[in-house]
């Protein structure tokens, strides 16, 4: 049997039978199921008005609790029906503070006399939490609009929510329901998925190459196989294992989306082309980062010394995560386009864009072509590191050593 095939079989079997691999393989669909339940529940909540247990679980406690207000301006004369049970009027701040002390209310608003001129309202909470303090602001906004409009509830609704558009798209691609939360979450999910898959599979490549060195079995292997046979067997095996994980995650995601839509009308559709592009960009991303990690594995005497360089290597992969909002909010902007064409950020950034909007087809093609070219150059360089002399060397490792080797200077 061809020795590359033997290495491939051994690597694939060892990797996919690992408990950690099986756990992560099942974790993806499990997390997807939970997310789907939450989103479904939130959608249901929005349409029926009845909060589901899951929606309640994720709703901050303060949003369900009673708050007080003290009006010193004389403009707030009544509480709208939809806020009854959420707000209680107090005639003085002392009374409101006493109620807060007795925990009858969770916070109170102090509406000053000059609120109309200054627009400033004081919000008093017992704890310091600037983020959650903002979460409940719609209650006081609704109260103020309602009262400033002399209790005209219809007008108050219009002022609070003046834009309610119905969107129509001219593109021929399957449409995603713009009002579905899944449409909103898809780019985030795709970005995280690709990042997790490429990072884990590439990292396994590093540990797999280094296993032979740290277990000191490399010298025996060198008398049975060539370094290139070893590299090829490993890259293909781990790539296929990663592809298996991608397929399982993607298919379970697709099934969950169907289940999420109730199986009757698919309000949210995952375009099939995204799955195909996803598989391609995963493979190219893995080939790129997996090769780099294999190079580190070949040079580094043990895994402890690899961390500094691996951090540097994965830095470009993190950039799309740092700028994820930019990529999603302006997916056709210059920055997003550059990120999705630059080979080291392309695997993730392009998938974020494809999940967020309709990208001109030449762009993913160009991006994939640039990635292929980069991977070819990298694999040629990394193959140079897979020499017996390097693999058997125990010399100290540093980022400088790695990058010099990468550019063929060692």
């Amino acid at each position, binding site marked *: *049997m061809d*020795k590359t095939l*033997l*290495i491939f079989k*051994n690597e694939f079997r*060892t990797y996919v039978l690992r408990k950690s691999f099986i756990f992560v393989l099942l974790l993806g669909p499990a997390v997807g199921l939970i997310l789907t339940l939450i989103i479904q529940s939130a959608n249901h909540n929005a349409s029926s008005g009845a909060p589901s247990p899951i929606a309640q679980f994720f709703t901050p406690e303060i949003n369900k609790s009673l708050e007080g207000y003290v009006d010193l301006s004389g403009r707030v004369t009544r509480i709208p029906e939809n806020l009854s049970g959420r707000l209680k009027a107090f005639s003085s701040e002392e009374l409101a503070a006493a109620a807060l002390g007795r925990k009858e209310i969770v916070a109170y608003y102090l509406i000053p006399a000059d609120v109309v001129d200054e627009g400033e309202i004081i919000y008093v909470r017992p704890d310091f939490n600037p983020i959650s303090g903002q979460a409940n602001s719609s209650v006081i906004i609704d109260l103020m609009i309602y009262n400033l409009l002399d209790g005209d509830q219809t007008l108050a609704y219009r002022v609070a929510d003046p834009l309610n558009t119905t969107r129509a798209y001219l593109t021929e691609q399957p449409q995603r329901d713009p009002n579905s939360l899944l449409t909103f979450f898809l780019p985030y999910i795709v970005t995280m998925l690709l990042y997790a898959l490429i990072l884990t599979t590439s990292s396994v490549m590093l540990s797999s190459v280094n*296993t032979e060195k740290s*277990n*000191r*079995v*490399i*010298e*025996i*292997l*060198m*008398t*049975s*196989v*060539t370094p290139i046979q070893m590299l090829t067997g490993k890259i293909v095996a781990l790539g296929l294992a990663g592809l298996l994980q991608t397929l399982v995650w993607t298919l379970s995601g697709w099934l969950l989306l169907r289940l999420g839509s109730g199986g009757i009308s698919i309000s949210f559709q995952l375009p099939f082309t995204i799955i195909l592009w996803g598989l391609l960009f995963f493979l190219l991303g893995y080939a790129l980062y997996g090769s780099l990690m294999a190079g580190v594995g070949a040079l580094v005497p043990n895994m402890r010394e690899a961390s500094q360089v691996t951090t540097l290597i994965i830095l470009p992969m993190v950039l799309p995560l740092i700028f994820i909002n930019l990529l999603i909010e302006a997916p056709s902007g210059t920055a997003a386009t550059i990120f999705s064409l630059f080979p080291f950020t392309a695997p993730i950034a392009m998938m974020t864009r494809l999940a967020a909007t309709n990208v001109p087809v030449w762009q993913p093609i160009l991006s994939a072509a640039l990635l292929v070219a980069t991977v070819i150059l990298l694999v040629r360089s990394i193959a140079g590191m897979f020499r*017996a*002399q390097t693999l*058997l060397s125990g010399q100290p490792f540093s980022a400088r050593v790695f990058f010099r080797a990468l550019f063929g200077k060692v």
Partner: protein
Amino acid sequence: MPTIVVDKIVKTFGSMRAVNDVSFEVSPGEIFGLLGPNGAGKTTTIRIILDIFKPDSGKVSVLGGEMTSEKKDRIGYLPEERGLYQDMPLQQCLVYLTNLKGVPPAESDRRVEAYLEKFDLAPHRKKKLKELSKGMQQKAQLIATLAHEPEILIIDEPFSALDPVNTQMVKDLLREERDRGTTIVMCTHQMNQVEELCDRLVLIHRGSSVLYGGLDEIRRKFADQAVLVRAASDLPAQIPGVTGRQNRNGSQLLTLDPQAKPQSVLAYLVNAGVVLEQFEIAMPTLDEIFIKTVTGQELLE
């Protein structure tokens, strides 16, 4: 035809010349000692023979020609730095390494199973290697070296870190392999083991070959003009041709005149009625030869 021919090989790493013009031949079915102090260039020489490293110059011929991947499968190698896949079950690891040596899977299974039985490791076949004791791991390493039934066995420091029981086991195994016709290259600095096992040897010091030949031939070459005698009674005070005497482990080491012959000393003692229990040409130990050669070399340098 020699099994291995090493012809004037040179290997340099950076500014350091690890192997310098080393030549030797290993004959079929012999145990050949590749000796030298630590850092002498033994392991580099072995790696060149195994085609792991390419020499800067010189040639190596194995089994009648250049190394090929097919020939590599006919070699068993036990490196100085022992190691197997620690997280893999014992049997799976050994079968995988045997497969990599070109043995079909079913045959690998059969051979590994037989060796596991032979080395009393069969009950541990499903255990991960890291769960085995050091002694068991040493045995597993030997199985990995032998299971593909190699024609050439190259073993680097085979007795390092072995207890006396396992040392004896390895010795027996090497003799067994030699009797089976396997050519063995044993790389070590433990001279007593070489004396016990090797037929011929080469001594490498600072990358260069300083001594090469048959074990007896080398010992004779380094033998002083002396005989070792033990008698039931006292030796005569004056023995013709003897210029000095000293005690050595209950025997008398008699230093002879350069012109004197051991046979004439023996004849004199017999004629004098001495009851001899031992009479032999005093041979230096390999340790003494080793030290003499290495220090002599250093003095020369």
